[in-house]
C-alpha cells in the first residue's frame, strides 16, 4: 500500500477567487474546451448588510475512501503511490459509474478520449518533486501541497490546526482540506 498521502490545504481566507488555478490547470494539463478540472465556486450567505461571500476552489478531493475507486468495475480508478486518485486509461471502459458516484461531482467525461476528466494533483509533477500547477500560480499563496502522512509537513500541521475537508460526514476521507473564510 501507498505510504504517502499527498493532499492539499486551501486557505480560503487567502483565496481571492481569481481563477488563476483554473487557467493554469488548463494550460498544464491540456484540459479540453468547456471542461475545468478545478474551479472556483462562489458562495454567498446571509442578507444585506450581513452578507458573506466565500470563494472555494473545487476539484477532485483525492479521497482515501473514494467512492469512485469503490465503484469502478475494472479497478481503472486507483490510488497512486502518492495516495492520489488516478485513472488507468488501459483499464477504463468509460462506463461513467465513477462520475456519478463522486459525491463532490468532481469528475466529468473528456469528449476527446472518453476518460474521466479530473484533477490528478499534477501527479506527474509530484513525481518530479514539483508542485501542482495551481499551487505554483496561486496569487494568494492559498494552496499548500504535501504529504498528509508526514506529521511534520505543512499540510499536516494545518490539518492539526483545524483545516477541514468538505463534507467529512460522507466518510470518504478526502485529502483536500480547507481553512475556511472567517466572515
Amino acid at each position, binding site marked *: 500500500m501507498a505510504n504517502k498521502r499527498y493532499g492539499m490545504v486551501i486557505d480560503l481566507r487567502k483565496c481571492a477567487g481569481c481563477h488563476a488555478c483554473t487557467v493554469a490547470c488548463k494550460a498544464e494539463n491540456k484540459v479540453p474546451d468547456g471542461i475545468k478540472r478545478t474551479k472556483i465556486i462562489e458562495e454567498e450567505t446571509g442578507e444585506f448588510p450581513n452578507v458573506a461571500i466565500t470563494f472555494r476552489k473545487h476539484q477532485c478531493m483525492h479521497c482515501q475512501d473514494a467512492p469512485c475507486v469503490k465503484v469502478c468495475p475494472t479497478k481503472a480508478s486507483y490510488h497512486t503511490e502518492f495516495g492520489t486518485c488516478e485513472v488507468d486509461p*488501459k483499464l477504463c*471502459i468509460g462506463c461513467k459509474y465513477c462520475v456519478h458516484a463522486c459525491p463532490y461531482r468532481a469528475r466529468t467525461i473528456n469528449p476527446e478520449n472518453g476518460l474521466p476528466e479530473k484533477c490528478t494533483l499534477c501527479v506527474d509533477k509530484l513525481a518530479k518533486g514539483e508542485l501542482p500547477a495551481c499551487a505554483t500560480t496561486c496569487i494568494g499563496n492559498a494552496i499548500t501541497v504535501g504529504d498528509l502522512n508526514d506529521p511534520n509537513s505543512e499540510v499536516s500541521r494545518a490539518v492539526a490546526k483545524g483545516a477541514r475537508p468538505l463534507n467529512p460526514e460522507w466518510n470518504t476521507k478526502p485529502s483536500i482540506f480547507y481553512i475556511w473564510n472567517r466572515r
Partner: protein
Amino acid sequence: MHGEVLWNVYIAIYLFLAGISAGSAVLAAVNQLFGIWEEKVTKAAAYVAPFPVMGGLLALVLDLSRPLNFYQVMLHYNWTSVMSWGVVFLNLFPPVALLFAVSHFTGWFEKYRKALAVAVMALGVGIGTYAGLLLAAISANPLWGNPVLGVLFLVSALSTGVCAAMLVAQFVFKVSHQSLKGLAVVDSTLIILELVVIAVLLIGWAVAPTGGKALQILLAGEYAGIFLGGVLVFGLLVPLALNLLELGAFGKARHIPAVAPLLVLVGGYFLRHVIVYAGQAIYPLLLG
C-alpha cells in the same frame, strides 16, 4: 440548472431489456418448478428470457465512452463495485437462459431442466435486482441512493417480464384464456406491489434530508409528466384497471388481450428512463 446527461437512453434501454429477461426467466422457472399453469406458459417465458438482455448488452456497450476497452470489464473484477457483480450475472445469465430455452425447444437435457430452472431463477433475480442496487450504491445522489430502488427494479422487472411472456404466450403459443387470466392475476399483484414500493420510495424521500430534491424533480420538475403520466397512470393504474376488468372485478369479463401488458411494458421503460435521467438532472456536474 441542469445536470449533464452522461447516461443516456442506451442505459434506460439496457435496464428495461435486462428487466424483461429477468422477469420472464423467473416466470418460466416458477412455472417449471411448480407447474402452476400449462407448459406453454413456461415455454413462452423461457423463449423470451435470453434475448432482450442480449440487446440490452449491445446498448450497454454503445453507451461506453471507451467501447474498445469493453473486454477489460470481463478480465478485471472489483468486488466492491455492484457493476462487477452485474458483469458476473450478465456473463452467466444468457448462456444458462439460452440452455433452458433450447431444452424446451428441442427437449434436450430434460433431466436437468429443474436444476436449470433454479439457476435461471437465481440469475434472473440477480439481474433484476443489481441494476437498482447499482444506482442505490451511489449514496450521494438523493434520487438514486436508496436501496428500495433495488426492490422497485426487481418488481418492475418481474412485471415487465411477465407481460412480455404474456404477449408471446397469447399470440405465439395461443395459451388458454384460463392461463392468461392467471398471469393477469400475477401481473396485477406485481403492479400493486410496485405501487406500494413506489409509495415507500416517495415516503422515504420525503423523510430523507436530501430527498426533497428527488420528490421535487419527480413530482413537480421536468420529469413530473413522464413519471406521473407515463409511469404511474398509463404504466401502472390503467393496466391494473384493465386487468381487473379482464378478471371480472367490475362485472362481466371481457377480453382485451394485449393492451394491458403493452402498457406495462411501455410504463416499465418510462420508469427506467425517468430514474436514469432525473437522477442526473438532480444536480449539475460542478466542473463543467
